[in-house]
């Protein structure tokens, strides 16, 4: 029997994926989903400020540290330029603002009265406000040390060194960074869930399609029985799901370098469990449909709304309470919840309940489909 199943699976896969449009449908769309979430979350918090720096006070530690401080700020990208380049690139909007340090800057800070530094911008004050406030805070601190040391070089150096070793605090901001990539990967998975469900339905629909073109009955008049045929369809469906999961995780992790904030293997496991759910749901849809048209309509009625309600497209937290209660009955939500839990540091043990619920969904839907398939015995259109 397994030989027959494998024969059916390979032949069907080959025929299905010969068309480039199906490859795009099954694999291109989920990748586009990652891109979409990159755009959604990538652009939100991180409008990057491009700052051109003209350092006329070269060789001085304080000037160099100032530039490094700006570099270390969140959402700021620093390029070293000349005065002329700064002027041109600001005009061409290649840069958002410029930081000009003239010679004598370090000396002036050290003596307690900062001077010879200027910030230029074409876009207006609000662009530079953030940088200005951070930067002036920094300069004021150093200038205060200058005033305290009152011209005593050794004392200033001592204070300054201590300050420098402390300012690594700035990098602790990077915790914020992974929260963005977590959101991105969460969102990518949300989209993937929907694409998995739609492709599961269209692959299961082959059963109906082959009923309509009557090849199903030709198959049944051969030594292949209905059970073998449906098993082969399920197996093929699972293989496609598996490929989708692998490809999406690969693109997410390796190509786009999004850190999901949890082990990829755990994500893979959960998604694999969900592939069982989406195949079983698709079988229920097919079992209750008399034609591919009806299955298509049912799928539209089921897949998109449930994905919407369970938070595949935007976080469920923004929805009213009543809807959030509905989402407890939707398998997609249990996947997303598990991922959220794991991202916020819960171990695999913390999501056992969620995973059992998912498995239960799969089992129940498989049983419903099996029951219904057993009762459809309509061979009317053959011969």
């Amino acid at each position: 029997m397994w030989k027959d199943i494998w024969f059916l699976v390979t032949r069907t896969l080959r025929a299905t994926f010969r068309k480039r449009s199906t490859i795009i449908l099954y694999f291109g769309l989920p990748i586009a989903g990652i891109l979409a979430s990159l755009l959604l979350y990538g652009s939100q918090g991180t409008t990057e400020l491009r700052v051109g720096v003209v350092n006329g006070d070269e060789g001085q530690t304080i000037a160099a540290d100032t530039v490094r401080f700006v570099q270390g700020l969140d959402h700021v990208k620093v390029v070293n330029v000349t005065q002329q380049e700064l002027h041109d690139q600001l005009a061409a909007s290649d840069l958002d603002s410029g930081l000009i340090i003239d010679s004598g800057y370090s000396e002036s800070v050290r003596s307690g009265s900062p001077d010879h530094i200027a910030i230029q911008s074409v876009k207006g004050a609000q662009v530079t406000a953030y940088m200005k406030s951070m930067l002036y805070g920094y300069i004021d601190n150093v200038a205060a040390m200058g005033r305290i040391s009152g011209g005593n070089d050794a004392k200033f150096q001592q204070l300054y060194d201590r300050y420098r070793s402390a300012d690594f605090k700035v990098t602790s901001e990077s915790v914020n960074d992974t929260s963005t990539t977590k959101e991105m990967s969460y969102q990518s998975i949300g989209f993937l869930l929907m694409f998995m469900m739609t492709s599961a339905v269209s692959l299961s629909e082959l059963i109906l399609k082959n009923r309509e073109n009557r090849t199903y009955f030709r198959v049944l008049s051969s030594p292949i029985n209905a059970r073998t045929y449906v098993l082969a369809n399920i197996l093929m469906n699972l293989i496609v799901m598996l490929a989708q999961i692998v490809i999406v995780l690969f693109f997410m992790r390796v190509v786009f370098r999004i850190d999901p904030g949890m082990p990829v293997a755990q994500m893979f496991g959960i998604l694999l469990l969900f592939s069982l759910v989406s195949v079983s749901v698709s079988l229920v849809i097919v079992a209750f449909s008399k034609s591919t048209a009806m299955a298509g309509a049912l799928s539209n009625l089921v897949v998109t709304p449930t994905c919407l309600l369970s938070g595949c497209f935007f976080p469920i937290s923004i929805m009213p309470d009543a809807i959030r209660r509905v989402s407890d009955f939707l398998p997609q939500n249990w996947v997303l919840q598990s991922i959220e839990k794991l991202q916020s540091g819960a171990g695999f043990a913390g999501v056992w309940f969620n995973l059992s619920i998912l498995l239960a969904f799969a089992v129940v839907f498989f049983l419903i489909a099996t029951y219904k398939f057993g009762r459809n015995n309509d061979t009317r259109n053959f011969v």
Partner: protein
Amino acid sequence: MNVLDIRGLTKKFGEFVAVDNMSLTVREGEVFGFLGANGAGKSTTINMVSSLLRPSSGEIRILDRDITKQSRFAKLNLGIVPQDLAIYEDMTAYENVSFFAGLYGLRGTQLKERTEEALEFVGLCDKAKSLPKNFSGGMKRRLNIACAIAHKPKLIIMDEPTVGIDPQSRNYILTSVRNLNESGCTIIYTSHYMEEVEEICSRIAIVDHGKIIAEGTKEQLKSTITDVKDIRIEVKSALPAAAGALKAIPGVRTVLQEENMIRIHSDAAVDNLNRILKQLLDDGMEIRSVEEQEPNLETVFLTLTGRNLRD
């Protein structure tokens, strides 16, 4: 040896009896004609023989083995050419045949050889790599046949394989039926075209309302109706009212009108041609020709069922 043995076969759909206690035997090497009007129960019978429908009662044996007890054996020895096309439009002709042949366990070089053989048999070798989407109706029908024969079944059942196709494809198909038969296949052939059945079938069964009402060679069937004569009268333009009056004439059994041809079946023993012609003349019709036909299968069918095969 009997290739197909049907005993007391009945199929009910709810209250409706589609096949009614049918018994039938097809012997090895025969081309067996299966005739019946629309809804007579032919396809239902074939569906049960190919295990797609479960009989309400009765027994079916293929090559002397019960098809429910040894279903794999039965299916391996059976090829079905369905009435409606059953092919994948998005697979090439070659892939179609190879797919269906593969379901019978063929693999590798054997699968390749049998596929090519089947395609050659129906004359589609040069179209092997094309999609059936772009085929003519006749070519699709031929592919439909190729898909049923690549696994070399002992018994091939063809349900109206020539419906709605060009004469060239039809001749091709009829020739291939003969060739298949010569190569040792037993064939059950269903058709609405009497000429085809007369041409290729060695034995014929006529089905009506799920029952076999006559069975035998062409000659045997024709000899059952020596008591009937088949009169064809060509008129300039037939009036619809004519039939009723004609039926009242003693001896007349059935009257059929096809455009300006009136066909009358009448008892051979009754001399009524004069009365018939007088009736037509009285009705104001202009007679062009009168002809008495040798009985053929169509006459047999008409006499037995009171209906034309094609309606």
